[in-house]
């Protein structure tokens, strides 16, 4: 079987900060990582390949530096890695991104067939969760999102568990299909030394805009219907009463509890030992 994993190299968002003085984005020194959800998608593809046989290809769109993440994927055991990188891709929103990825996948499908496409449920730098479904639509294959377990995969069909708000759904789809996955799906493996060696020497294929069929109107800024019109520091609620409780925490606590009861914010018989219903 041929498993293709779409992965994105993202800045580690827990480290992206706004400079408090100048209110500008501080991008220097922010490490890049494989989008964590995508890493779980890769792990699942590797595990399925190890069981069912076949091949894992990783596909990423991004600047030339994104080869670092692809090498990392190879060190974990991916067989092949392709980077889609071209200036013409810059400024793509989710719609244009899914177009570019889908066109590359289409080329791969024609050349070597695809049984399953795997993506993370969303990227931590954008949190949109749109590219996975976008690819599925464009390739006209069924999608199963928020996957937390793969029951089985066999010729022509897959069964998974999907995480919904109020439980889990067991669903089946015909192959080829696209999954977007949650972190609970699996534990990411450690790379073996031979794979580390292979990755260090591996040169991912780099496809520019001329390497596969693309229409200029559908990619980059031109192919992106959405645009940012302004950015700003989030407006907050204005703070209420602040009690300095450094010297005498005991009486500060008593004073606060008193106020909460007085204003009926907390009541003697707790209303909610379970929930609103």
């Amino acid at each position, binding site marked *: 079987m041929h498993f293709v994993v779409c992965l994105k190299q993202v800045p580690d968002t827990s480290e992206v900060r706004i400079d408090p003085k100048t209110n500008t*984005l501080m991008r220097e020194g922010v490490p890049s990582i494989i989008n964590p959800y995508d890493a779980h998608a890769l792990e699942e593809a590797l595990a399925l390949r190890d069981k069912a046989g076949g091949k894992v290809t990783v596909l990423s769109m991004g600047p030339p530096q994104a080869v670092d993440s692809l090498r990392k994927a190879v060190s974990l055991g991916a067989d092949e890695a392709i980077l889609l990188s071209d200036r013409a891709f810059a400024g793509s929103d989710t719609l244009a991104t899914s177009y570019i990825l889908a066109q590359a996948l289409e080329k791969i499908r024609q050349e070597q067939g695809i049984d399953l496409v795997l993506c993370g449920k969303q990227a931590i730098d954008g949190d949109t969760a749109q590219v996975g479904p976008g690819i599925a639509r464009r390739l006209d294959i069924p999608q199963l999102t928020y996957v937390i377990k793969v029951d089985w995969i066999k010729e022509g069909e897959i069964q998974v568990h999907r995480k919904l708000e109020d439980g889990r759904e067991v669903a089946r789809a015909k192959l080829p299909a696209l999954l977007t996955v949650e972190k609970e799906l699996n534990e990411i493996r450690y790379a073996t030394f031979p794979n580390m060696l292979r990755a260090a020497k591996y040169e991912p294929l780099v496809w520019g805009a001329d390497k596969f069929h693309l229409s200029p109107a559908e990619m980059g800024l031109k192919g992106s219907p959405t645009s940012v019109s302004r*950015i700003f520091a*989030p407006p907050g609620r204005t*703070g209420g009463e602040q009690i300095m409780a450094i010297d005498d925490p005991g009486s500060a606590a008593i004073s606060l509890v008193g106020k909460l009861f007085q204003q009926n914010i907390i009541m003697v018989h707790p209303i909610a030992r379970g929930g609103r219903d």
Partner: protein
Amino acid sequence: MAMLDIDKTRCIGCGACVVECPTDALDLVDGIAVVNQEKCIRCGKCVRVCPANALNLEREGEGAQPEKRDPEAGKRHEFSKEQPLPEQVAGYAAKRPKDAAAGKGESGEAAEYRGVCVLIEQHQGEVAPVSWELLGEGRKLADTLRVPLAGVLLGSEVEEIIPEVFAYGAEEVYVIDDPILESYRTEPYARAIVDLVQKYKPEIFLYGATTLGRDLSGAVATELKTGLTADCTVLGIDQETGLLQQTRPAFGGNIMATILCRKHRPQMATVRPRVMAMPEKAEGRSGPVQRETLNMAEEDVRTKVVDFIRGKGRSVFLDKAEIIVSVGKGLGSAKNLPMVEELANVLGATLAGSRQAVEAGWLSHEHQVGQTGVTVRPKVYFAIGISGAIQHLVGMETSDCIIAINNDPEAPIFKVANYGLAGDLFQLVPALTKEFSKRMSLGLGR
């Protein structure tokens, strides 16, 4: 001679200037705008559209501001904390914006589209509350634009829901009732929506940012080749253009970005549950019901739902909790968790945590409040040792009462807190537990 200067530290790589430039002098290289000074005619258009105020037409030698610069430009785009959202909900004008009435978009396509649609999300006849919240929000948008508000109801045997859709503010309901739509599956649902959009041509289409809404909207937007903004927290209408202003946390939640979909229709957005207010329900209203058929046969659907296992669903528990006691990095270690659990027990509260607390492994993912976790809106939210990064705030700032405990009096959490205790949480939490417990046991409320 003036030169266009680009401040790389401010550029967010949005590409607005590249699109705006009449001479193709600007380009994005590695996510940052780059100017070809030879092509640049210094018209200043890019300077005016830059949302991050990263562009500047400097005169050589003196570095003065260009005369033509929009006097509002700097002000409008400053990341000012004090500045409220200018077109926020509060600013909805009763009158329809001047251009929007004519359906003025920048292309002919936009002109044909009119009205606001909200997806009414239902599972086995039970409607997700976010759908009602969206009808409330959709009502405001529709009123501003002076266009109708419609609810879109898909499912099998959903007749009983129709009156409720009217009761929450829709003027019209589009229904597709078909056994194929009984359980949600992407393909038939997307087919249904795409067909409805192509027939009724709404200019705005809103979905709840639920698993269903996010799964479906991504597919629909792709099929319709239109823009989709995920996880909006504020919606508004631009007074001049009538465009939907879709505001969401961006760049890891540290800043907010307002997104526009200028030329494509419908403008689609998903909105987080419990961010918009629940509207009043007015029984007895009604209006036209448009019934359509699903253009898809079961054989064409390549997905099957085999089973549904209702979870003990801790996440359900968390977002319905009345009182939440939430911990952050300040707790220091998992071994301090029992101290907080004790407070939660006394209050009958549910335990939750920030991203850091979850990533440190103190709590499981279901307990995470914030942008990548659950959005909560309890009556009381205790934030203990949480500094208050925006990605956390967006998940809890609509709580009725927020009580923050942190040793740094400058921590951002205090800016959203109704009550803030600045001090050592390891002393304060036990003291609170003791006092609550004393009053509770004695019935000494006041």
